[in-house]
């Protein structure tokens, strides 16, 4: 898949260099879509999905209670 992304990118650059605007636009659009798809595939985990449970997003209640003024 990564090979396809870079191949499309090279195609876009070469087409852009020779001023083939439409071909370049089509190749760069393909690059973007493939890169986005590959990104989603890489970050997806069968266990967590797209979540990131290793990042704590809620405070520890006991730690909070220690800072409450008496």
């Amino acid at each position, binding site marked *: 898949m990564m090979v396809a992304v*870079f*191949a499309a990118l090279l195609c876009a650059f070469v087409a*852009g260099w020779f001023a083939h605007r439409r071909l*370049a636009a089509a190749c*760069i659009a393909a690059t973007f879509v493939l890169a986005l798809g590959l990104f989603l595939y890489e970050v997806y985990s069968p266990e967590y999905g797209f979540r990131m449970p290793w990042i704590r997003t809620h405070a520890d209640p006991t730690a909070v209670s220690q800072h409450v003024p008496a």
Partner: protein
Amino acid sequence: MKPPYAVHRNLIIRLDDAFLLAVMLGIAAILTAAMTLQYANGELPCPLCLLERVALFGVCFGILLNFRCGFSGRNTGCSLLFAMLLLVVSVRQTLLDIYPRPGHAYIGSAILGIHMPVWSIIIAVALLTAYALKLALLGGDEILRNADVSAQPHVKRLVDLLGLYLIALVAINLVSVVLQCGLGECHTFGYKLLTASSAGPASSAAPDSAARRAAAPVRACARAARTVRAAALQLRSR
């Protein structure tokens, strides 16, 4: 004497060219540094690192099209789209590795204490800010649309050189990705195709032959000792 409008027009065109060239040069330098680290230090890029490279190339593509095919808001939009992609990928990668756990840690060496994904966030934010400032301060769509880069031969020469250099970088990256990932998933263990070819059936005896090569001096010494002993025995028997 030029009328004020012509002076204003030339200034906008020159500032725009300078901005686009500076961005292109900066990105080319960043990609060259990344590839130098890859080939000199053996730091293989992870899949998300490769996607960050793609995003940086995409930003350059919009700029190259502005110079080669004439200014267009679409090209600027393309650059901004890839700058956004760079930001999304690098933020996600930073969040993936921000908490060290088995199989997850920042890959590669830190530069000024900051690892590549975090640098990518800084680069993406800098690019988006620079584009926003450029659009806000320069504007001048009509002026830029009618500008011709061939009117400034030194700019055109520099753009041609940089464009060819970037195309060469993309081609080298493509070859490198083919070697590293083959047609499947990318890993940072090594170049998949090179490892596969050295571990293939044709060279399955490679470790044996290497061991044999390493033991060759020992065998030569033993052979020489046997020869000397035989010569000594012959002398004694006479």
